[in-house]
């Protein structure tokens, strides 16, 4: 009796597994058949998008990607990593298209012919946030003065330390202020994404450079934390989209990459981007170039 019961439960379990694997394939096939009934079987191909964590963590891609997939026969595989890694994936031909925010580093790829069809998409801004008590007294200062004060006061400063776009920006700000924070014992490198680094900064009561979108998305988890420095010209955070040069590897989905770049600079995407965040945060998280 016990034996039977056990084998029965095992059979049920196997059935469940087969059921879930078959339902998976159903899901994958559905869009092909329902979306393009007239056209003769457009095959859906994979498109690897390497992008920064901020576009995923803010939730923007969760809105844009389904729109793109609905109109195009591509299955977008979003790999959200730091901008440094995303660009490296482009250089090695491991991704088809890139959406990143480090114009200086990107320029190098454009010049080397690693990427094509380099297009400006949107911007938002970086802000320096920190505890409301503001131990170094940087509120309302320029970035140069603020960074100098943080350095001199030996206040805790949390750095991404992961070669991401934000990290590159932060390093350029230290350089601009003619400072080298590496030797400062209160300078912490997390090596993690923006969200996690913000949480570390909040716990350590430290200052941190962040993109505004991620900060707004995380604000409720951070406690007594606020924007202290903003609006400086060099705090602009510009996102570009580009195709990886198909010569890099014969597996690159060049057509898909082209379609994605075109989609990202289309009226439709622009409209979505400019409205994104209004509902949840009462302000847009990303802005368009006029």
């Amino acid at each position, binding site marked *: 009796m016990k034996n039977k019961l056990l084998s029965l439960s095992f059979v049920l379990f196997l059935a*469940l597994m087969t059921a879930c694997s078959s339902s*998976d394939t159903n899901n994958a096939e559905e869009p092909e058949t329902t979306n393009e009934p007239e056209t003769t079987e457009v095959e859906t191909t994979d498109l690897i998008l390497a992008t920064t964590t901020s576009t995923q963590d803010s939730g923007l891609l969760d809105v844009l990607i389904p729109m793109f997939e609905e109109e195009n026969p591509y299955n977008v595989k979003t790999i959200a990593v730091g901008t440094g890694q995303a660009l490296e994936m482009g250089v*090695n031909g491991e991704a088809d298209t890139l959406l990143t925010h480090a114009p200086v580093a990107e320029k190098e790829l454009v010049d080397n012919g690693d990427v094509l069809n380099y297009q400006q998409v949107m911007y938002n801004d970086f802000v320096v946030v920190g505890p409301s008590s503001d131990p170094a007294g940087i509120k309302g200062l320029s970035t140069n003065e603020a960074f100098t004060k943080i350095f001199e006061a030996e206040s805790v400063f949390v750095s991404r330390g992961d070669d991401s776009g934000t990290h590159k920006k932060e390093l350029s700000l230290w350089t601009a202020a003619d400072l080298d924070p590496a030797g400062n014992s209160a300078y912490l490198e997390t090596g993690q*994404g923006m969200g996690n680094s913000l949480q570390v900064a909040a716990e350590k009561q430290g200052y941190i450079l962040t993109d505004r979108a991620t900060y707004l998305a995380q604000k409720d988890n951070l406690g007594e934390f606020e924007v202290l420095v903003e609006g400086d010209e060099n705090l602009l955070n510009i996102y570009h989209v580009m195709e990886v040069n198909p010569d890099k590897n014969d597996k690159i989905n060049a057509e898909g990459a082209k379609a994605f770049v075109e989609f990202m600079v289309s009226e439709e995407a622009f409209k979505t981007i400019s409205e994104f965040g209004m509902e949840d945060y009462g302000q847009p998280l990303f802005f368009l170039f006029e």
Partner: protein
Amino acid sequence: MDLLLEGLKKAIEMVLAADPIIVEITLRTLKVSMTAIIISTLIGIPLGMFLGLVKFPGRKLILVIINIGMGLPPVVAGLWITLLLWRSGPLGDYSLLYTETAIIIAQTLVSLPIVTALTATAFQQINEKMILQVKALGATRLQLVWILMKESKLALLAAIIAGFGRVIAEVGAAMMVGGNISGDTRILTTSIVMEVSKGNFDIALALSFILMTLAFLITFLLTFLQQRKRSHE
């Protein structure tokens, strides 16, 4: 404390509402982990039996290597597999990176040494006199293997349980070779990492409860299988 209760509440809500995304992620986790542990079992148990029973030169060295493999950090496995599966890598032609298959490969790689090593240990402990006795009674080779397997059932299931624990808990390799792609390779552990980085602690907690439930149910089933005969005898 509030967050814990909130997470628990959210988990129950998510399960009750059968949120299609959660259901999908949970089923994928189950599918990937079960496939990996089944492959590990199918390879690891025969291999472990062979290593436990047959004496040949170099056997100790292989056992040492497999024992080291038990401690193979998943991120290391993930890194190696990424390099192998890259478009420009040796297996690039198969386009396996960022697929469920890649996660299965990684999870198999980290669980196979555990299953193999624990099986080998179990079979090394079998009394040689017993093997002689069974042989003397005229058992064929196949019958001998079957009897020995029944004899070490406890240890074999313990090996599978340990391997499964590794697989279901694994996140580093799955993140690296799977890419945590929504609707494609997102599993419970990688979603938890992502939700934490998004600051959605309640969802992360809810997912953790679902993961724990899943691990509990399967381990329970396996333990039940393991202990069943005992209560009979």
